[in-house]
């Protein structure tokens, strides 16, 4: 649904900005892993496409609020960073397929990098609601880019932090420490959100341990609702056939081992409808 909501609060969290927006309908329908499409630039802007942000949190205040966390990257996020309380914001959501949750009270490692970490706390909440044990592995380039360390320490059984410059936690990347954490906590499943190379690394580790891994991906999106076909990536279906699937409606959450990370940005020759053989073979 589309909502013109009022900005309730804005805050800075290290390198990130967080906006809380009153959007009852979206908050009500929200499940962990959902994202919102945010119109940027105001009336008569030259920026036509909505920007996608994972929902970091929902609260029941004022009928329902959504919070999202972002860093300034280009003109759209720069505009968002200038929003103030009482401004209005045009959101479409909740969008996407949320994280599937296990039936049983298993042990889950939640891995986040950069703003991707913000996506994990509602997942943790839901998992803990089902009696799951939750452990966090959060990383970033530097201390100010590791989002939610404090909250993770409060919620998680254990929390392992990494920074590439060593300014917080272990020096390195989340994938460097993940095998140790999985082994230590005897994890049953992994949930991950972050840049594509990180998701690929996390998936490789989970496959190594032979445990399921759910990843939430980010691909360039023009619509977020499944109509523009710009956000595709190669994913292997239940039938073993690779298809170029839309990350906005068929994702953003995928089983990690189904995503052909090495082929992102290409049309694999064996994908359904690939130029040359693929088309007819797989059709």
């Amino acid at each position, binding site marked *: *649904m*589309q909502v013109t909501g009022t900005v309730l609060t804005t805050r800075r969290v290290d390198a990130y900005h967080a906006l809380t927006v009153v959007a009852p309908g979206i908050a009500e329908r929200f499940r962990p892993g959902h994202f919102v499409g945010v*119109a940027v630039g105001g009336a008569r802007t*030259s*920026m*036509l*496409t*909505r920007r996608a942000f994972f929902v970091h949190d929902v609260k029941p205040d004022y009928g329902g609020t959504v919070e999202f966390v972002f860093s300034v990257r280009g003109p759209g996020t720069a505009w968002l960073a200038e929003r103030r309380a009482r401004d209005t914001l045009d959101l*479409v959501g909740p969008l996407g397929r949320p994280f599937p949750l296990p039936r049983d009270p298993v042990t889950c490692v939640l891995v986040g990098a950069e703003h991707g970490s913000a996506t994990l706390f509602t997942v943790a909440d839901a998992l803990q609601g089902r009696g799951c044990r939750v452990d966090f592995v959060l990383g970033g380039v530097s201390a100010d880019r590791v989002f939610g360390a404090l909250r993770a320490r409060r919620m998680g059984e254990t929390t392992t932090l990494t920074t590439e410059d060593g300014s917080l936690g272990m020096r390195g990347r989340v994938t460097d420490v993940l095998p140790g954490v999985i082994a230590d906590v005897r994890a049953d499943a992994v949930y991950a959100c972050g840049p594509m190379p990180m998701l690929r690394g996390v998936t490789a580790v989970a496959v190594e341990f032979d445990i399921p891994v759910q990843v939430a991906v980010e*691909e*360039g*999106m*023009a*619509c977020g*609702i*499944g*109509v*523009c*076909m*710009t*956000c*595709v*990536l190669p994913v292997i279906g239940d039938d073993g056939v690779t*298809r*170029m699937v839309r990350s906005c*409606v068929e994702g953003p959450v995928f089983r990690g081992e189904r995503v052909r990370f090495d082929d*992102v*940005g*290409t*049309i694999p020759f064996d*994908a*359904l*409808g*690939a*130029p040359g053989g*693929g*088309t*007819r073979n*797989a*059709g």
Partner: protein
Amino acid sequence: MPVDMRTYLGHVELVNPVTTAAGCAASGSELAQFFDLARIGALTTRSITMAPRAGRPTPRMAETPSGMLNAVGLQGPGVDAFLERELPWLAQRGVRTVVSIGGGTVAEYTALARRLTDAPGVTAVEVNLSCPNIEDRGRVFARDGAASAEVIASVRSVMRYDVPVVAKLSPDVVDIVSVARACVDGGADALSMINNPLGMSIDTEAMRPALAAVTGGLSGPAIRPLAVRCVWQVHAALPSVPIIGMGGVLTGRDAFELILAGACVVAVGTALFHDPYACLRILRELEELLAARGFHRLADAVGLAHRPPGASSRHRIDLEESSL
């Protein structure tokens, strides 16, 4: 008083003039979650191809000032899956469906048309001529009047007589009127314009083309002045041919602009990416605009901006039964 919003594509009546643009509403079911598709004049499908197509690699999209570039490459399920799943789904829901088709040879277009001719639920066929002609070194059909006319004539010859064939034109030509005329001479019942002009953008950080496909189609309000000009020129030259106008329509005002230029149907593309409810909003805004200006019927506004400088608009509304 409500405005009579009915309009005609050839002999086919549409309840109102708003349709989705080809390739901008996927299979239809995605938008159906937001509103009842039967409420718009028609839904235009993505361009259906013979075989399934995986399309182009990503990045497929780049934002540009008041527009965007896309290089999707006609990703789609192929005509079999379309006829088996997508078209029946639309037909069951009473959605008037304009089926867009794309091919690499005249034979392929013709074969597609043949497959559609007995399919129930085809309101019209729109021939996407902006496809590379495999038999002419990949030269796009739409850039050549003769090649376009050949495709149209062949499609027309196999399509059921009561299903209008619409030729979709590209602005990347020297003279859109001559291509339009060739298509009409070839048997097109209506024309649709504009398809995306070819554009490009470079990522100045990576110092590489922003799209994997290097070039892509430009859409959105940035191209509206090109669309208005094309519709205007073609309507001036061929006033009796119905035109589906499109290109950067975001609001009822924008739709009205194309209608005044000569379009009797208006398609909404890129706006859907921003606002899933765009079609219904635009329809409502258009109706309000018409009512506010005293129009009783949409048809009276079609091409109205062509009236000679002296003439008043009232005058024309009183004099003419229909501008179609």
